[in-house]
């Protein structure tokens, strides 16, 4: 017994040493420290993002940069969306923000006015990543107090995805880019099959992925132009919301309680929902589901065409240990070359004008052009920034009740408007 005890103790010690050694190593790679980059010294930059589907694409872009700059090495880290902002916040507070941070239009104001992002106005005025090459609304989204804080990365838009197999089985004609609201409802009705547990459309209690788009298609909006008043109770918006909720009412869509069990994406990927409004960023995930045979058309037209069209941007940490190198990298990321690399990886629609076709060409099984068309009529995110994200809590509580059919649409919109206006004061 004594012999075994000794061997066990030795084994345990060895394992502990390895574990501690591994912990020590990763710590060394994280800290940017107070290194001076002089001449040929190795510079290490860290870039952070939330979508694991885009990791390969970002690594390709980083490699393009590293080829041109032998003394700089770039490390890409992916943190899932749910934890991304918490981690970024904590890092910014601790002065340890990664050198390149991908920023979101709803969040950039907090970080920029908090002084943790570097001013990149001169990069956008420069030659390689000039602001003229990007959609004006993406550049504007990252402009705070007359200064630019982000180099546009991509544009994300929404389109109508549909499951070809479910359509074939129900004998319904495939959607087209000429579809209207009536066409959508009619198809949803024919496709819904209660016994088989199949729904026509995912009418999810989600603004970005569903109802903001419907509101805009009816000429309504959620916030006034100056962003100071909530307009959920405008007649156009109420009418649009009634249409949005009608899918749940008539049983063509799962209810919020069902979406709490299976997400809208899971419903579509498993073939239980025939159609869904989803973003260009979902393409790689949907493609990875072998049994899913899908195609894409533009969102149906209400009184007008509308869809969300928002861009993300590369921001630079104000506290980076290597300001010159980080800025250079950010500039590279906004260059035509890098944006083409992004297009070819299929990861996201690049923001640089003229680089979108390679992205469309990536997809052989279906037509990805509808996403790029949105550029002509897109709306940016309503701007529920951190200072108004208490508005999100209002939506979580009351919009859920509206979609659960517990609160009538008109009454619900009035309550939401009043409460959101309170938080905006």
């Amino acid at each position, binding site marked *: 017994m004594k012999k075994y005890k000794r061997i066990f103790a030795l084994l345990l010690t060895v394992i502990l040493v390895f574990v501690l050694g591994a912990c020590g190593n990763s710590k060394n790679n994280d800290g940017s420290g107070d290194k001076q980059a002089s001449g040929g010294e190795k510079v290490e930059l860290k870039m952070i993002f939330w979508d694991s589907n885009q990791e390969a694409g970002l690594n390709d872009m980083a490699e393009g940069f590293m080829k041109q700059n032998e003394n700089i090495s770039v490390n890409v880290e992916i943190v899932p969306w749910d934890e991304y902002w918490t981690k970024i*916040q904590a890092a910014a507070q601790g002065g340890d923000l990664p050198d390149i941070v991908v920023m979101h239009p709803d969040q950039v104001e*907090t970080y920029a006015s908090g002084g943790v992002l570097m001013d990149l106005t001169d990069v956008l005025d420069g030659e390689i990543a000039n602001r003229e090459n990007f959609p004006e609304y993406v550049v504007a989204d990252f402009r705070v107090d007359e200064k630019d804080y982000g180099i546009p990365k991509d544009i994300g838009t929404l389109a109508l995805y549909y499951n070809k197999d479910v359509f074939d089985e129900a004998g319904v004609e495939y959607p087209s880019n000429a579809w209207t609201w009536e066409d959508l409802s009619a198809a949803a009705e024919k496709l819904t099959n209660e016994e088989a547990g199949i729904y026509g459309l995912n009418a999810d209690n989600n603004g970005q992925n569903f109802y903001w788009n419907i509101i805009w298609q009816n000429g309504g909006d959620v916030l006034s132009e100056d962003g100071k008043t909530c307009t959920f109770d405008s007649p156009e918006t109420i009418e649009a919301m009634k249409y949005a909720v009608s899918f749940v009412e008539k049983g063509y869509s799962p209810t919020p309680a069902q979406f709490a069990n299976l997400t809208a994406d899971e419903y579509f990927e498993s073939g239980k929902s025939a159609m869904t409004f989803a973003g260009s960023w979902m393409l790689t995930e949907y493609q990875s589901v072998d049994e899913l045979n899908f195609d894409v058309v533009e969102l149906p037209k209400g009184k007008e065409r509308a869809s969300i069209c928002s861009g993300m941007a590369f921001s630079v940490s104000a506290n980076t240990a290597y300001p010159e190198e980080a800025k250079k990298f950010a500039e590279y990321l906004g260059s035509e070359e890098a944006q083409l690399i992004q297009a070819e990886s299929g990861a996201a629609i690049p923001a640089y004008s003229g680089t979108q076709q390679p992205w469309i060409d990536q997809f052989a099984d279906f037509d990805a052009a509808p996403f790029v068309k949105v550029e002509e009529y897109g709306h940016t995110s309503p701007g529920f920034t*951190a200072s108004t994200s208490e508005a999100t809590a209002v939506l*979580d*509580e009351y919009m859920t009740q509206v979609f659960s059919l517990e609160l009538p649409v008109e009454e619900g919109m009035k309550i939401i408007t009043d409460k959101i206006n309170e938080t905006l004061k």
Partner: protein
Amino acid sequence: MIRKKKVKNPRLTLTKRNINAWGYAYLFIAPTLIGVLVLNLWGIIQSIYYSFHEVKGFNDPEFIGLENYVRLFSDGEVFRALKNILVYAAITVPIGVTLSLLLAVLLNAKIKGKGLFRCIYFLPVVSAPAAVVLVWKWLYNKDFGLINQVLETFHISGPDWLGSGSIAMVSVAIVGIWSMLGYNMILLLAGLQEVPKELYEAAEIDGGGAVQKFLKITVPLISPTLFFVIVTTIINALQVFDTIFMMFKTSSPAFSAVESIVYLFYRYTFTNYNKGYGSAIVVLLFVIIMAITGVQLKLQKKWVHYND
């Protein structure tokens, strides 16, 4: 009346011999002590400080006195979250502790495979919370989850574990109880092994049954351990967060029935960048836990027997 002269305890006087003896003791607890002071105590002080200020985004704190607390006491969300954690604690503590005690007693008896069973019951404690919740989420799925499918075979229509506000807290509680059983069981086992076997034999000779042995011998003698287990279980129950965060979206219809105080704190501090109000919320929780623990400490005189 004879006045008792206060005698100095020779063990406590500051002599070189004593410092040598305790020196090592303090040295060994220094790492943990420093860790607790720096990581925990400093955090508590800073939270209390922030609660009297407005700390939004990355801006500097602005002193606003009791404004956060005034808002706190008229905030319906806070009361709802408090109610939620009290419901959670009311379910998990009695059931969890009783089951742990039962398991400890059973696994203290002479049965085969004792070590194996102890391992199995302890596994949930060392399992990664994210993995645990992922699996439970699928078990709870209304149409495709294993739990409802098993209930189907008994012709019982399973409830909507994740989507219905009325049962959602029970779903969280079940995961909570499952996770803590092993830990409490090990603690109670340790306490049980201190109970001298002779007492049981004596009781048998006097004609005592299993239940009597349990209530009159076991419980009183392990009451210190039991007290510790109850206090720590209550404290942990009131701080529930992980399971809720990973199982429910904020837009889920069941969310308002499961949002805990710590979740509310997380929402205000990290999602809304409002550290001042978030700190006030967490200070409220701190005060409540202190109060409940204080009451328990007072009550222990009634039922906890220490061997002094």
